[in-house]
């Protein structure tokens, strides 16, 4: 169980607890309302830029001040807008609990030179706030089944799903992204802000007996955005490094032999979050 579940899970994973989808969490908490407003009414561009810039500037400082401020930034991420990786099956459960499904353009891709893509699946108050404050944006309102269909499509394309909070534990969105464009992930990988893109509750494990090496070019390898899958050409073996694995499940979904499965971090004994 991760630290957010311990506080807000009520026996299940935090993002599967229906209480965390209640819009009253925002309407009755001015601090959370401020976060939701800063990513909808004001400027998501500015929000993404400002938080990432802070991460960059902290990273330029000498130790030990860098470590101290990185810890502060990690704490701040819980009070702001960040997320945790989820495999497809959990993402599908999330959209079943959520209400007001709406897809908005991905601002990370827009700001970092990607193709304009509707891949940011939002819930709750966003459906009302986005068209009000950003009428220029192309958005798509969906029902539960429509949202599920899109999630499966993104999974096929190799986009990692991550459930995002607007001040823990309010569930506001599922981000579907690629490493090249994802500022939340890159702020973790390059600047050490772990809580901007938490690892999922799972890790992928491979059964070597079931893996047939896909005739020479294993499909799972190119699906991994985290460089966690290593190939040994001599022994024709694929290995997954659990310390690098984010538990997104994309490699598993690409394996025709069901050689890869996701197990919980506890079961696997992997404590790296």
């Amino acid at each position, binding site marked *: 169980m991760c630290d957010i579940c311990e506080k807000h899970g009520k026996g299940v994973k935090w993002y599967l607890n229906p209480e965390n989808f209640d819009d009253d969490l925002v309407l009755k908490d001015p601090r959370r309302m401020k976060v939701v*407003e800063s990513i909808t009414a004001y400027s998501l561009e500015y929000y993404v*830029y400002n938080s990432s*810039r802070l991460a*960059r500037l902290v990273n330029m400082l000498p130790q030990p001040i860098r470590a101290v401020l990185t810890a502060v930034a990690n704490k701040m991420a819980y009070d702001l807008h960040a997320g945790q990786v989820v495999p497809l099956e959990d993402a599908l459960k999330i959209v079943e609990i959520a209400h007001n499904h709406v897809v908005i353009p991905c601002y990370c891709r827009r700001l970092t*030179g990607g193709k304009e893509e509707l891949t940011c699946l939002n819930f709750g108050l966003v459906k009302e706030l986005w068209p009000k404050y950003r009428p220029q944006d192309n958005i798509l309102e969906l029902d539960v089944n429509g949202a599920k269909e899109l999630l499966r499509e993104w999974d096929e394309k190799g986009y990692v799903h991550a459930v995002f909070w607007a001040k823990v534990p309010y569930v506001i969105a599922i981000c579907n992204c690629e490493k090249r464009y994802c*500022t939340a992930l890159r702020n973790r990988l390059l600047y050490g802000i772990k809580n901007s893109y938490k690892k999922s509750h799972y890790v992928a494990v491979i059964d070597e007996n079931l893996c047939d090496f896909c005739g020479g070019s294993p499909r799972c390898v190119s699906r991994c955005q985290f460089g966690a899958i290593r190939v040994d050409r001599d022994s024709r073996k694929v290995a997954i490094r659990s310390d690098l694995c984010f538990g997104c499940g994309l490699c598993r979904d690409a394996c025709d032999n069901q050689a890869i499965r996701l197990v919980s971090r506890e079961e696997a004994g992997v404590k790296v979050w």
Partner: protein
Amino acid sequence: MVKIKFDEEKCLKPEECMECIRACPLGVLMLAPKKKPPNPGIPPPRYIVYPLYDVVCNRCGKCLEVCPKGALKLI
């Protein structure tokens, strides 16, 4: 570390160009609003190019090659 300098006076509308940001093979550059918009619902009035992930810059120089205004410098 590589310093990427962006000349705000030479590049006035990076949001309409995006050439350097797209050209970077390592995704170092980002389009950034210069200031927070004063009121809700208003898009940022002015953008700049910000070297957000310059820790991975390897000085390949592609951004300089594509910039039509010569607004970028590597130091």
